[in-house]
């Protein structure tokens, strides 16, 4: 199925999830996307006056795996250990939506043609919404990279943006899969570090606070995200329920010969309009609440990863100190021990400095994003409630008015 997002978006990045203060020297956006059977092809368009690039405006086509490759490249790069790496976009998943469309196609004879058309419309809208979301997620990933003063200068990033051929990273080979597995083991060790089980002493109040904060925050935001998803799905369910109700009221109305005829038909119309409004409430809650919570769940995980790296550096530093002491007491290989300890110390301090800045940026990013989305959520809820009230009142007037 070919689906294209609206071409020609407004100049500034339209993603509400992250307020980006990038300058215009590097602008990245996903100008087009095509959904094929089992993959999505994103057209990544770059506009830049930076001397590094051959042209000022150029596009390449990328698939999801190439985004993941880019993300992993950043994570594994020691240079960026002190930075929050923007979370990788989630894999495009149309499975559920496709299944539902298929089930609808297989048909349920008790459903009228009108109902069928409406349900199909709903599912297609759902498919489109998922598609738009995945485009937005991939786009915001690139845009955060482009906005970050350090990350934007990465060589792999340039390759990703400019290299015309595909990057041959599709499908993780066995070595990479194993790598992924090992990475998870390391993660659990990190968990031990960060939860203080390992006995590592935190020296800095700021980071102590951040550690406790992020641990709790991440768990709770994940919870909130899951539950917001459920609320959104319930709203959707409710909206879908109005379809058969409206259809039944229509048939009732057309069969009646008395005053109930107009009443039922008006009611059928009302439920059809309420359905659309309810559907909009659901999708707005999805975008402004669920998606925001989901993004910051991932971002807070990225922040946690940063803390892990810093703690690892601290652990290395402490070990280097111990090794130096041992070397000094034995008076053997003191020089290498000294230089190693120096390196660890510098690395740790470098990480701590940049981590501090990153975490403060994370906080302000989070606060402004929540603010924007909560305001928009409230305004949209109000808009829909007012619209519902209006159509309900109009119907009531019509029903009460007739003899």
């Amino acid at each position, binding site marked *: 199925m070919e689906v294209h997002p609206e071409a020609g978006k407004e100049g500034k990045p339209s993603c509400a999830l992250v307020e980006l203060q990038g300058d215009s020297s590097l602008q990245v956006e996903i100008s087009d996307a095509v959904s094929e059977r089992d993959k999505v092809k994103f057209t990544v368009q770059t506009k830049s006056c930076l001397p590094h690039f051959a042209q000022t405006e150029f596009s390449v086509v990328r698939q999801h795996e190439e985004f993941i490759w880019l993300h992993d490249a950043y994570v594994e790069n020691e240079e960026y250990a002190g930075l929050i790496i923007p979370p990788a976009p989630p894999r495009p998943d149309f499975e559920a939506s496709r299944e539902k469309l298929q089930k609808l196609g297989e048909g349920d004879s008790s459903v009228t043609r009108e109902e069928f058309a409406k349900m199909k419309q709903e599912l297609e809208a759902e498919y489109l919404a998922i598609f738009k979301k995945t485009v937005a997620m991939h786009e915001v990933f690139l845009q955060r990279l482009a906005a970050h003063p350090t990350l934007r200068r990465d060589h792999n990033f340039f390759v990703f943006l400019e290299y015309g051929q595909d990057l041959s990273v599709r499908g993780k080979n066995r070595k990479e899969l194993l790598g992924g597995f090992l990475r998870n083991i390391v993660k659990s060790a990190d968990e031990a570090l960060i939860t203080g089980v390992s006995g590592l002493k935190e020296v800095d109040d700021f980071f102590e606070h951040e550690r406790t904060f992020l641990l709790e925050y991440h768990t709770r935001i994940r919870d909130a995200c899951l539950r*917001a998803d*459920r609320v959104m799905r319930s709203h959707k369910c409710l909206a879908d329920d109005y379809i058969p109700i409206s259809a039944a009221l229509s048939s009732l109305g057309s*069969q009646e010969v008395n005053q109930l005829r107009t009443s039922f038909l008006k009611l059928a119309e009302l439920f059809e309009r309420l359905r659309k409004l309810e559907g909009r409430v659901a999708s707005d809650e999805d975008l402004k609440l669920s998606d925001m919570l989901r993004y910051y769940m991932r971002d807070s995980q990225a922040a946690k990863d940063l803390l892990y790296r810093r703690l690892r550096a601290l652990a290395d530093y402490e070990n280097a100190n111990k090794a130096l002491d041992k070397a000094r007491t034995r008076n053997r290989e003191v020089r290498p021990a000294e230089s190693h300890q120096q390196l660890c110390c510098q690395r740790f301090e470098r990480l701590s400095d940049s981590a501090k800045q990153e975490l403060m940026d994370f906080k302000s990013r989070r606060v402004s994003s929540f603010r924007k989305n909560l305001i928009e959520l409230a305004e949209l809820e109000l808009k829909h409630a007012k619209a519902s009230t209006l159509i309900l009142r109009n119907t009531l007037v019509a029903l009460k008015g007739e003899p």
Partner: protein
Amino acid sequence: MAAEREPPPLGDGKPTDFEELEDGEDLFTSTVSTLESSPSSPEPASLPAEDISANSNGPKPTEVVLDDDREDLFAEATEEVSLDSPEREPILSSEPSPAVTPVTPTTLIAPRIESKSMSAPVIFDRSREEIEEEANGDIFDIEIGVSDPEKVGDGMNAYMAYRVTTKTSLSMFSKSEFSVKRRFSDFLGLHSKLASKYLHVGYIVPPAPEKSIVGMTKVKVGKEDSSSTEFVEKRRAALERYLQRTVKHPTLLQDPDLRQFLESSELPRAVNTQALSGAGILRMVNKAADAVNKMTIKMNESDAWFEEKQQQFENLDQQLRKLHASVEALVCHRKELSANTAAFAKSAAMLGNSEDHTALSRALSQLAEVEEKIDQLHQEQAFADFYMFSELLSDYIRLIAAVKGVFDHRMKCWQKWEDAQITLLKKREAEAKIMVANKPDKIQQAKNEIREWEAKVQQGEREFEQISKTIRKEVGRFEKERVKDFKTVIIKYLESLVQTQQQLIKYWEAFLPEAKAIA
């Protein structure tokens, strides 16, 4: 389709001090029969009868309606009297008084006028005192409430007692306000009595709420959880609607059993309503037999009105069932939405607690509060969905089953008449044979039998005509009630939806400044 027609008022001598009409209950649950499918030319604009409870348009139109309803009310009352007697000779079978030209009831042409003229003289003959009484301001006004469910007893012998309160200005009751305690089986017993008296002569007796062994067992066992309180509330509301519908029926209202149910402090226990009692089993067997009979009765329908109506009710039944199923799904999902919103509210509160930016933390706590209030809102709306919309539909699904039952009784009545005619024919043939064979002693017996069966045929015809007439009137009344009922409930339901939306507006308007305050 012809619109409902209100006939012009008969007789101008009626006092018109019926101002108090407008308030409260449905006064003229119309005994006016309307013929929806008259082949005659369409009438001029119909007088709105439904205005009575909805609003107070000028008194003129309602007064007109009043008069006719008044007369029909008494027609019912007088028929009521006859129904108590074992023979059940309808009064109308007596010679019509000289002012009326007898018209056979089976013709469709100007049937309204015919029924009016048949009943008018009866009223004047029989119920002048009653008219006088009514004219003194005794209006058809009665209000029933079912409340205060109370558990009586313990264990498996426990039951719920409900308070039945009646407020009325009708003179047939000794007091104007009184209440009694009744249990569920009492209601079933009442219905059973009314059904046995009125169903088979064509009256649509409102069905009682259904039994629920599971529901009641939970209550008996003493589970104090929300599902058993919900069950009791559902039942209480259903019992109230049941009684309200029953008293709205002018004929049933006159019934002494109904009065006893409403008034007397002690009521003999209705044991025949127990599911597995002997009477219960007998009922089941009868129902099965009825089903078989219905399939084998092949009636020559001379009256297209009945065929059309039956089809109409069949369609209505199907559509209502479909709608009811969809509304039940709506109720279920709204409850889910409520539960999910509550869960989200909690996690939003937790998130707010964790958040270390003060203003954002505050805003998140406010969001949690808003969501909690919204959860309450969804719950209340789910109740409205259920008690107003869903229960209305299920009530009418059961009412239509009663209507279908009444049509079936008419068929059985016809069958009885048919059978009598066939038997008469056989007796006549037998007599002819005896005449030929010349057996004088048997002739007298044969002649007696012929006379007997002639009378039976006549009675069969009368009963069939009576039940047909009653059904026409009942269906007219039923349809009027249905329209009023649905309109009232739909309006109430929409108002509940408006309420919900307005509350939502309030909550989000209160939240918006909090969100904007995040700095």
